[in-house]
């Protein structure tokens, strides 16, 4: 499907405008002797300078996916498939082939791929000053830089993200910062090496609504100034609509629908996407109307049957089809993919 261009230096290659491409990515987590299939074969493609939203309920595997990209899943996680990533020098690597905490992967982390987290309050150690922890990212990736250089760069970054009095803030401890300020500091730190890819794992979930808006604006501004791609993980469809160009909807470790924001919001194909959109409160809706809730709970991803993951909760479940085999991925319109038996050409 994709136009493969031969690259002399590496076995892997990616088209010009593609930064990251995951194929058949599977992540298993071993817990108490059981194996959880957290991510069950997803394909994902992220273009340069685009923001891709990864949406789903808690436990659908979106966080595991994002951590797998940057290689910081715990050691009880194992993965197969491939994650191709184009480095700054144009070479393409399969990230899954790298040793998780090896030198090569570490050289990419914080430098070419960065990540910000859901709870900024816990992303810094309480024992060292913000400046100390932020400077590290410069010192790791620029061995030639002195502490003074690092401090200058960090203060510059702090100004960029709108932290007032950065010289004073530099020597303060995390507990002296508010949540919003810490998220700004985290963003400043993670972007100080100008990475090509920023993974944002629900960066605003733990923040107040007004702060949320500020942080989102900041991210948009920085994206246009620094030119990077953002993989935006969230369960908030409102944020997706305002931040992203394309959206992947995840359910039970699979991507069930993928397309542009317009396609997904105006023409949702998968019943799960439809349900998600219906469960959003609407400002123009009738007040008496009850908010829609999807029936049932997300199953535990252990020994899942060969079937559509959503069939137990699906209102349009077709017996004998949906509970008997995996639905294939269908391209319903250009760039709009859905994994649902409702749209297959062949009927069983």
């Amino acid at each position, binding site marked *: 499907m994709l136009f493969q261009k031969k690259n002399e230096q590496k076995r892997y290659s990616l088209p010009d405008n593609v930064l990251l491409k995951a194929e058949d990515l599977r992540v298993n987590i071993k817990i108490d002797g059981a194996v959880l299939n957290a991510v069950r074969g997803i394909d994902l493609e992220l273009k340069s300078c685009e923001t891709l939203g990864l949406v789903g309920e808690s436990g659908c595997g979106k966080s595991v996916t994002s*951590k797998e990209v*940057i*290689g*910081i899943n715990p050691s009880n996680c194992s993965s197969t498939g491939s994650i191709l990533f184009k480095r700054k020098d144009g070479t393409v690597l399969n990230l899954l082939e790298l040793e998780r*905490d090896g030198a090569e992967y*570490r*050289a*990419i*982390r*914080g*430098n070419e791929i*960065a*990540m910000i*987290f859901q*709870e900024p309050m*816990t*992303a*810094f*150690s*309480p*024992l*060292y000053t913000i400046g100390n*922890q932020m400077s*590290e*990212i410069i010192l*790791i*990736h620029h061995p030639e830089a002195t502490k003074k250089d690092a401090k200058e760069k960090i203060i510059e970054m702090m100004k960029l993200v709108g932290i007032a009095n950065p010289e004073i803030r530099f020597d303060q*401890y*995390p*507990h002296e910062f508010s949540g919003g300020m810490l998220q700004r500091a*985290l963003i400043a*730190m*993670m972007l100080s090496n100008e990475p090509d890819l920023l993974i944002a794992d629900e960066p605003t979930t733990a923040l107040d609504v007004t702060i949320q808006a500020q942080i989102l604006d900041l991210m948009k501004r920085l994206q246009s100034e620094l030119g990077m791609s953002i993989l935006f993980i969230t369960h908030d469809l409102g944020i997706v609509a305002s931040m992203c160009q394309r959206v992947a909807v995840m359910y039970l470790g699979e991507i069930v629908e993928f397309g542009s924001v317009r396609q997904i919001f105006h023409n949702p194909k998968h019943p799960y996407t439809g349900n998600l959109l219906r469960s959003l409160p609407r400002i123009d809706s009738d007040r008496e109307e009850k908010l829609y809730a999807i029936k049932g709970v997300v199953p535990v991803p252990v020994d899942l049957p060969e079937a559509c993951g959503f069939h137990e909760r699906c209102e349009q479940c077709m017996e004998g089809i949906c509970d008997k085999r995996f639905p294939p991925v269908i391209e319903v319109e250009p760039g709009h993919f859905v994994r649902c038996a409702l749209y297959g050409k062949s009927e069983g």
Partner: protein
Amino acid sequence: MKSEFLRFVIKKFLIMVLTVFLISLAVFYIITLPPGDFLTNYVGQLQAAGESVSQETIDKLKAVYGLDQPFIVQYWKWVTNIVFHGDFGYSFLWKMPVTSVIQAYIVPTIVLSLVTMLFTYLISIPIGIYSAVHQYSLGDYLFTSIGFIGMAVPNFLLGIILMFIAFKLTGDTMLGFFSAKYQTAPWSLEKFIDLLKHCIIPILVIGLMNTCGLMRTMRSQMLDELSKNYTLAARAKGLKMRVIRYKYCVRAAINPIAASIGWSLVNIFTGTTIVAIVLNLPSMGRVMYDALLDQDMYLAGSWLFLMAIMTVIGTFLSDILLAWLDPRARKEYIQG
């Protein structure tokens, strides 16, 4: 910040003084607990030994210790004697002031405790870190089980078992600090080696429980820290695992351990008491035990008092240390 910290230290210090005061009340209560005051016992002992004690002497002694007065007056006398004259009372067992008895035995006790403490920390912290970093490895299982058993064996049983083993292996029960032939010999290399040999069992017995406890604490603290979010962020920065472990996790995990130094000291002192009794070591534990058996309460009470004061000071130092090590705790403590 500086003045806030000072205020915090002063506040803690005042609490410490209050605690010591309450402890002294409790200790004095214990001293006066045994039925019949010690003077009666003493006079009884003297008379049993065939000495005649005149009523005059008894009255004089009574006046000195204020025995005919209410508890609070007696307490006041006892406390002012300690504070102003360094006088902890009189040991009827030793027939000399309590202070002199304590002075004679405190040095070996302190040396033994400090050596054990050093041994405890040097062993438990690295093992705790190793166990946490290699969780569920063979080594982790091994150390965890040793730690578990070590926590459960009562000190005195371990002492007896080790004595038994030592006897079976060497034909010597390793009682006391020296073998008989070095007991009165002048210092020499052989005597020193003999001393070291005799210290193995006491250090093992006193240290084991504490070492195992610290090991477990260090392991669980370290596991806690390793699973915290900031390690994820640090990894996402591209930091080496080794740096994350030592710069962040160990540093954070060690804080509560540092804060427990006060308690460790108590455990070790308690340990020396039992071990001294079982292994017949000439240290304060043995002295206290003999004093208790004879209801020589001034001596026993003073030793108890000293141990409690040391604990309080240990706790005070731990609190300050913790506040100094952990900026977040510093803020909480200072404000709270």
